[in-house]
């Protein structure tokens, strides 16, 4: 028996926390599979095995115990988040490469769990979207009639069975369509949204996936595994930029609802900005961090060169975390003022 200063502890472990995060992702995964087909599951599996393998390999090189680090499931969480951010029908090497970057570059090279300044999944995603923008934009058409065999064949061999249309696997995302449409000019947002690519609120099928992410996030909050501050602040940040723009020129700018339900906004709110390791930890810091992520997401989507912006927004704000934390130290019991009294 070890002699510690505190003799009792809650029976919680990191593994259990991570397991709950994985569970919270399940509704979103289910909807994704329904919309995009079993390709999603293939991506998840590829990412999981790559992540575990990469983590074990680096730990071996670093001569650290492997089993406890794999058992904490943090690599699996990273892998799943990454897989769910990538195109469901992307080629197998893309997800493998992305996961390798996330685990090796984003996590282990900094010293493993707890030491990484950046969200590993977002590191992997950013590397891919910068290196392979075209492939990363090719999302499958939701609800496309492409059976499981065809999807597998496409992912692993990049060929299609006879009679299948390439459109089914490589149509652009709504954010992409909107961006390109606006760049080409001449069309108002409302006209663009008339295209069949867009569903009731913006993204046919995708909007349901987004809501499922939100559901998972709410459950995590109810389980006291994530704070309310960061996600709410992020959504507030999204609204704070998109709402005035939309009110000002509805023809030029998409509605706040469109921004909320498209891309990775809600996935980020529930699972990505709430990553504790790379996020801010002070109460005020969490509000600032979340809000600025939200602002950056819309700013980059609307004015930047990339269709979706969650990864960049999160990575940029990750860099600011030490500064935010330093300047938002809460008031210590009995002392006046916050920061360093």
């Amino acid at each position, binding site marked *: 028996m070890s002699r510690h200063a505190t*003799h009792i502890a809650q029976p919680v472990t990191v593994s259990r926390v991570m397991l709950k995060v994985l569970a919270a992702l399940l509704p979103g995964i289910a909807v994704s599979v329904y919309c995009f087909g079993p390709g999603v599951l293939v991506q998840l599996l590829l990412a999981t095995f790559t992540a575990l393998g990469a983590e074990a390999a680096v730990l071996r090189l670093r001569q650290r115990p492997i089993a406890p680090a794999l058992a904490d499931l943090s690599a699996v969480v990273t892998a799943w988040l990454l897989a769910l951010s990538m195109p469901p029908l992307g080629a197998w090497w893309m997800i493998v490469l992305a996961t390798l970057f996330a685990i090796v570059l984003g996590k282990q090279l900094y010293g493993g769990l707890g030491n990484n300044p950046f969200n590993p999944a977002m590191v992997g995603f950013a590397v891919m979207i910068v290196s392979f923008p075209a492939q990363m934009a090719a999302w499958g058409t939701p609800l496309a009639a492409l059976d499981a065999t065809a999807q597998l064949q496409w992912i692993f061999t990049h060929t299609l069975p006879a009679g299948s249309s390439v459109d089914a696997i490589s149509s652009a995302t709504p954010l992409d369509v909107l961006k390109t449409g606006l760049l080409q000019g001449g069309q108002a947002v409302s006209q663009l949204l008339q295209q069949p690519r867009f569903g009731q609120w913006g993204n046919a099928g995708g909007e349901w996936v987004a809501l499922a992410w939100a559901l998972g996030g709410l459950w995590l909050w109810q389980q006291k595994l994530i704070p309310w501050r960061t996600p709410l602040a992020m959504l507030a940040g999204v609204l704070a930029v998109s709402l005035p723009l939309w009110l000002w020129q509805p023809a030029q700018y998409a509605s706040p609802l469109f921004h909320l339900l498209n891309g990775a906004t809600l996935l980020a709110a529930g699972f990505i900005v709430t990553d504790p390791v790379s996020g801010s*930890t002070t109460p005020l810091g969490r509000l600032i961090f979340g809000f600025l992520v939200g602002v950056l997401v819309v700013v980059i989507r609307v004015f930047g060169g990339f269709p979706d912006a969650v990864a960049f927004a999160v990575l940029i704000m990750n860099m600011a975390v030490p500064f935010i934390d330093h300047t938002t130290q809460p008031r210590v*019991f009995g002392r006046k003022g916050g920061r*360093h009294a």
Partner: protein
Amino acid sequence: MSRLYDFHGGIHPPQHKDAATAWPIQPLPLPPQLYIALAQSVGNAARPTVSVGQQVLKGQQLAQLDGRLSAAVHAPTSGTITAIGPHPFAHPSGLPVETITLQPDGLDSWQPRSPLAWQDASPAQLRSHLQDMGVVGLGGAVFPTHLKLAASPLATLVVNGAECEPFISCDDMLMRERAAGIVDGIRIAAHALQAGQVLIGIEDNKPQAIAAMQAACAGTPYRVVTIPTKYPSGGAKQLIRILTGIEVPHGTRATDLGVQCLNVGTLYAMARAVLHGEPLLSRIVTVTGAVAHAANYEVAIGTPLAWLLQQAGIADTQAEVIMGGPMMGITLPDLHAGLPKAGNCLIAKSAALFPPRPPEQACIRCGDCASVCPAQLQPMDLFWFAKSRNFGKAQERHLFDCIECGACSYVCPSQIPLVDYYRFAKSEIWAAERDKKNASLARQRHAFRQFRIERDKSEKAARLAARAAEQAAKLATQAANPAAASAAPAASGMDDAKKAAIAAALARAAAQKEAKPLSEQHTSGLDDAKQAAIQAAMARAAARKAAADAAKAADAANPDSPPAATPAQTGMDDAKRAAVEAAMARATARKAAAQAQKDASE
């Protein structure tokens, strides 16, 4: 009902208090031996006033205080002192401390007791009475109580009956059974402090204690306040915050903010000391965990802990035992130690109650610790700094505001023993500060010494220069007046001086002549002893040196070196011996002179 304030954070660990509260306070027979450590309070250990073999009566003082921050120690029963020396102590270090061993004679006969008429006594009298009675804070901190009664008038006296740690129920049982005694203590403390109001804070998981205290307080202005059960509401700062809204920062005395906090056990001990003249000889101890008869026992201070646990029917004598609660208590390194005044609870560990902590994992900065920290610190940052030994940063982030309550450690999903790291960092910082202080003292003293040597040197040089100048001037005048006529007055002046000097020398010689026989008579004994001692020392030194020489000679491969070394060595020895002899002779002469002077003056 007054308004209650909340404090940040806090946790709700399982209580485990029922096992011990099922029984009334149990008396115990006297143990075969009592081990009364001299370090029974914060501050200096007491100094023993008894000797081995002495018979003492119950309540007799065994050791007196040493300085202001110290408390006296008394015999818990009558008997014989069988030893005074190092003995295991209830401290996490496992270091032995000076301890008085008392063998009870079974008679338990009291020494005469002297109660204090406290209503007429001045606060100073009351304080010195409590100090003599060895009353210290029984909540666990064992701060000498007399020092806590120094501020008056005081706005609020907070009485701590919260007892928030799991397992511990000694205050609960004391309040249930001896509420009247506690209220007597409150009366005395409130009188000494001239307290404006008295608030008694009790957690709502102790309804019987609340009822008993309310009944005892009926007709008094003292108010029993029921507070929500939340750990660590029994921390003095937290309880003050809950009841008054005042936050006492680290490094500030509560009295400066008009509040003082006293534990119910302390107040009861105070009442016994003042009203009955009984020193602090026993206390209520919760013995629980893996024991057959979990209960609260009234135990004499110094009772061997192993014996106490046996009385309570400890199941596994090899089990680890916690003194204090499971959150802040210490694992006892040696159960031979006697019960200290701080010992409020003994918990025998079992694997069922205390499953081993899973291995430590990496901190994921989840912030759960920050959300439960009652000091509103950021424990994950402190952990980071402590682990990387970045103590300066840890201090900057207010490490010393940490009260080591363990809430962070309790909730940590990575199972990091956070408080262990904070204690490590704190004691490293203390050690560094001690070293720094010593170094700066040494630096100052060295610098002053350099300065002193320089000053002496320059003063001496100045004196010499002045004398030389005088001499030169004299010579110059002489040279300027070669005429013999002018020599006469100078000579006469010189003669006068010479004459006086000669007279003085004669007088001294006479005095010495007179003094010699006397001094020889009076100091011969002393001198003999001293001389013998010196000779012995010299002999020892010579022997050591000879041995060293021999070793050196044996070691030396070079045949030339032994003959070369030996003469040098002898020469040195001779010189040293001569020096010592000279020193001795000088000492003898001086002593004789001193004696003569003394005799002459008589």
